[in-house]
């Protein structure tokens, strides 16, 4: 986790906010650091104290399933890795004398008298990312949680499935430790209830996908599983790629989905099997399902601590205990207090990718109040050490406490290294990564004139940068450092075979030393960045991104194809959840755009873009300019029905977007195409969840239908909604759905196998025929109007045009692909190019706004610096060997190689260092060996292979 190491982040754990005064831009925050009883600057995380502690208590991280000591770290990869004493369970009290941990701590890190600390911090803005707590399932007594051993929660199952969890990833049922064969998942436990014992009224959003994922993992772990049954109300696979993931689970015949909310679970006292009593929501049949294990999909609730925090901040909580939003701007990030923003689950439940986008969005909003506070990065001048002459290699062997030394024969390793060619110095160390270990390493490098360094320790993924920094600090080129992972690859994976593990470590270290003999210094280059941004698209996402970047003081160009700004907002009436007027929202944003310094170009199209991160040359129909980063916010289109449900054939069949226009025009009386409706039938999922048209769920249509249905019902219209699942996810959506039902809106389910049929004559539809599932008979619903809830599809022409220019990959659905579905929702694989809003998938207004802000934050990460540092581990061409065959140009995913004329009539490849990722694909493909991958050259790799087999020949 990078947050622990970033120089601009100070992490205060075990701490809470106790006071906040001042105003946005100039807050003073008081933070109470609770005592830890272990000094963070001394503790190395060796774990000796844990062995010596006599107290065992249930482990919260393993949701009570495993044990921990009274001195502990919550989990193995915890940041910070400092231990903490749980004073409630520690035996060092006035009249108790245990101080085993303090006595045996080599570093004197234990500090029983710690009183904690109060700190005051000046801040420009505050971001609330307070998360959620898991619903206490024991509150629903009829499911027997806590009473029956084999009833688990979804969070407990996550730990059971995890290889580092309490059962090492073996799935056994708690009562008899036998692998379960039949499992029931019960959805909406604590969600979509009636309040009180029946749980919260809202939908917790993530539990449906979580259950589908756990079923698939279950099947992977236990191929012999007989049955995985999910009892659900609506399967809410509403998010990018979610519906497709749900569809994929249909390929596993063991996974079954049954509509129905079980009334109770009982236990067979002899076998400890569970009996789930449930009424099938489709057939009405009541049955008793015998299973080995039941998983309760517990929902999310607001943390209790929000109450105290709300008081400190002076912000109200909503009825559910989450922070209230200021809905004025349609933004899901603004609270009622200026300068205080929310993200993640602080203002309601969100899934991981939305939480990540909101977090970046909140960062962008906060930057608007903190842009003047940017810290200067001071360049440090270091004199480089003399690296010439034959290799003098220093090898440092880390014990990692008992992590390595507890298994490997570290003295034997030291002896085996000493005589390897080029090795000038060897030393063992308890914790090489600790400050003391690093200082020792630096001293030895200077003292023994070492010009290559090998560390045999843990994983380079987290620790290589630390060691490289230490080398660089004393003037040794960081690329003369090589790391060997003897922890993960030897002591951890072969814990029970110490001898062979030691032999393997010897091989790996010998290979590392062999490579070190051939290491060459490499130098990071820096390129200048143009500190301006191009936003393509003037809808909500694009405008939000442009406004946020402008507030941070960056030059922004926004181009819009249409004659005016606003995008989809111009076609809407009210925006849920707060029923904000779309016109007002559009007007507010457009006015802000006018008063900003953003250079807006309407009726403008993109011609071409060339260049790379930090340096893009943009050509538009309205002039050319240079930018450092690009945001694509070109939106999507609504699906256009063709010969479906009588659309185009009957005049009284319209789309939901056409209805928006009608509702927007309507004053006191609603008229649809000249008539006053008595009955309106909505048909959901038109152009969504259909592999032939658009496989994904469009997410926005269910909440939109609810909004429209309520408006019609309030005007006395009878409304019937025909749907497959009502996917009212998102802020207040479930509550609106409940309200619609209370008003008398009727909901009838259909299946894709038996679509509703529209029957009419001439130009008028009269009836909708639908198979009523519970009664298993055809119903004819007479109606005046039919509204098709059309899905969202990618804008094919504009996307393929942009794809041609920028080479951003598109998914199978035609939307642009984000860098990572969870952790990089607004980034692309092309550095310097970002996505916001519906260009990457269907989204509603609030989510699009959050994405706009998120993209702004990501752009700011780049252009807040005036230079970008390039990693030198890229590929390079020996042009004397190149015969310009062009294969590297074809194979590269990043457009880095190109053919150029190097002298009259002579072509050769060259690689743009700013675009090259150093993956080495071109180097291995190159038929003449002209390309080599720096830091992983053929010479270096071959020397490692030779070193491995050298020993075996003896």
């Amino acid at each position, binding site marked *: 986790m990078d947050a622990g190491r970033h120089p601009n982040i100070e992490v*205060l754990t075990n701490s809470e906010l106790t006071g906040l005064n001042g105003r946005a831009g100039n807050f003073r925050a008081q933070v109470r650091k609770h005592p830890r009883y272990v000094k963070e600057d001394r503790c190395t995380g060796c774990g000796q104290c844990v062995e010596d502690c006599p107290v065992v208590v249930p482990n919260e991280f393993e949701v009570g399933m495993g044990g921990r000591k009274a001195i502990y770290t919550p989990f193995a990869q915890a940041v910070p890795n400092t231990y903490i004493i749980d004073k409630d369970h520690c035996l060092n009290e006035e009249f108790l004398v245990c101080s085993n941990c303090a006595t045996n701590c080599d570093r004197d890190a234990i500090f029983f008298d710690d009183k904690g600390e109060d700190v005051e911090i000046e801040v420009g803005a505050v971001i609330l990312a307070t998360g959620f707590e898991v619903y206490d399932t024991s509150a629903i007594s009829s499911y027997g949680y806590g009473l029956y051993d084999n009833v688990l929660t979804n969070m407990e199952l996550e730990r059971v499935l995890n290889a580092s969890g309490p059962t090492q990833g073996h799935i056994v049922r708690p009562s008899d430790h036998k692998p379960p064969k039949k499992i029931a998942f019960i959805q909406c436990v604590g969600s979509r209830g009636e309040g009180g014992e029946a749980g919260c009224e809202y939908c917790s959003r993530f539990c449906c996908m979580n259950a589908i994922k756990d079923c698939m993992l279950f099947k992977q772990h236990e191929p012999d599983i007989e049955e995985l049954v999910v009892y659900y109300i609506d399967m809410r696979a509403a998010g990018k790629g979610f519906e497709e993931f749900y569809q994929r689970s249909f390929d596993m015949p063991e996974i079954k989905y049954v509509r129905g909310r079980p009334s109770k679970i009982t236990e067979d006292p002899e076998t400890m099997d569970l009996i789930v009593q449930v009424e099938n929501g489709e057939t009405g049949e009541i049955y008793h399902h015998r299973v080995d294990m039941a998983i309760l999909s517990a929902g999310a609730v607001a943390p209790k601590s929000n109450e105290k925090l709300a008081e400190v901040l002076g912000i109200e909580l909503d009825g559910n205990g989450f922070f209230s939003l200021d809905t004025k701007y349609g933004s899901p990030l603004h609270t009622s207090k200026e300068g205080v923003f929310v993200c993640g*689950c602080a203002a309601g439940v969100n899934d991981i990718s939305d939480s990540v986008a909101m977090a970046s969005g909140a*960062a962008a909003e906060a930057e608007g109040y903190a842009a003047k*506070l940017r810290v200067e990065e001071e360049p440090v001048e270091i004199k480089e050490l003399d690296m010439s002459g034959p290799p003098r290699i220093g090898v440092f062997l880390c014990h990692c406490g008992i992590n390595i030394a507890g298994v490997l024969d570290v003295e034997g390793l030291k002896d085996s290294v000493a005589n390897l060619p080029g090795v000038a110095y060897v030393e063992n160390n308890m914790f090489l990564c600790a400050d003391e270990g690093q200082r020792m390493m630096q001293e030895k490098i200077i003292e023994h004139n070492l010009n290559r360094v090998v560390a045999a320790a843990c994983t380079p993924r987290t620790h290589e940068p630390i060691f490289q920094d230490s080398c660089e600090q004393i003037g040794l080129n960081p690329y003369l450092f090589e790391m060997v992972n003897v922890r993960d690859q030897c002591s951890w994976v072969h814990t029970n075979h110490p001898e062979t593990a030691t032999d393997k470590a010897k091989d790996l270290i010998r290979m590392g030393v062999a490579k070190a003999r051939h290491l060459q210094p490499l130098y990071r280059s820096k390129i200048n960045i143009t500190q301006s941004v191009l936003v393509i698209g003037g809808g909500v996402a694009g405008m939000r991104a442009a406004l946020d970047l402008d507030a941070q003081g960056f030059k922004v160009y926004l181009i819009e194809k249409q004659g005016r700004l606003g995008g989809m907002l111009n076609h809407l009436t009210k925006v849920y959840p707060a029923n904000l007027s779309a016109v007002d929202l559009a007007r507010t944003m457009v006015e802000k755009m006018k008063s900003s310094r953003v250079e807006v170009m309407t009726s403008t199209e993109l011609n071409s873009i060339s260049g790379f991160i930090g340096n893009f040359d943009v050509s538009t129909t309205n002039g050319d300019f240079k930018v450092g980063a690009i945001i694509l916010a070109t939106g999507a289109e609504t699906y256009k029905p063709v010969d479906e449900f009588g659309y185009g054939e009957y005049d009284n069949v319209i789309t939901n977007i056409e209805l928006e226009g009608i509702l927007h025009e309507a004053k006191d009386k609603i008229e649809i195409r000249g008539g006053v409706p008595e009955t309106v039938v909505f048909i959901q999922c038109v152009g969504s969840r259909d592999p032939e048209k658009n496989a994904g769920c469009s997410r926005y249509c269910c909440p939109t239908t609810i909004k429209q249905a309520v408006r019609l019902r309030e005007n006395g219209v009878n409304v019937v909604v025909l749907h497959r699942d009502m996917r009212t996810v998102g802020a207040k959506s479930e509550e609106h759905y409940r309200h619609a039902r209370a008003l008398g809106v009727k909901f009838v389910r259909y299946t894709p196998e038996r679509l509703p049929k529209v029957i009419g004559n001439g130009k008028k539809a009269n009836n909708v025929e639908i198979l009523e599932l519970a009664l298993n008979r055809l119903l004819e619903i007479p109606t005046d109007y039919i509204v098709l809830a059309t899905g969202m599809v990618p804008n094919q022409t504009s996307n393929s045009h942009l794809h041609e220019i920028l080479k951003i990959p598109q998914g199978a659905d035609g939307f642009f692909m984000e860098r990572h579905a*969870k952790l990089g929702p607004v980034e692309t694989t092309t550095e310097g190019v970002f996505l916001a809003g519906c260009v990457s998938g269907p989204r509603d207004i609030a989510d699009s706004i959050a994405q706009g802000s998120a993209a702004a934050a990501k752009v700011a*990460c780049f252009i807040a610096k005036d230079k970008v540092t390039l990693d030198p581990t890229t590929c390079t061409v020996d042009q004397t060997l190149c015969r310009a065959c062009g294969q590297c140009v074809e194979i590269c995913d990043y457009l880095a190689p190109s053919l150029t004329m190097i002298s009259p009539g002579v072509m050769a490849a060259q690689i743009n260092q700013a675009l090259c990722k150093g993956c080495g694909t071109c180097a291995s493909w190159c038929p003449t060996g002209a390309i080599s991958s720096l830091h992983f050259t053929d010479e270096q790799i071959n020397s490692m292979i030779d070193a491995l087999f050298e020993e075996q020949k003896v």
Partner: protein
Amino acid sequence: MLPKEKREKGVLVLGGGIAGIQAALDLASSRIKVYLVERSPSLGGRMAQLDKTFPTMDCAI
């Protein structure tokens, strides 16, 4: 009581789960000082407890 250190003005982030960490990293990369305050003894929040995440089945930690 430990002596108070001089702290630069920045942005306060409350909560060290996936959202809080993401917000902190974005601010820090934009050269803004961040104070990341977490109630529990370590960062990570709920996501660190998960095994895999859908749809990519990446390891959650």
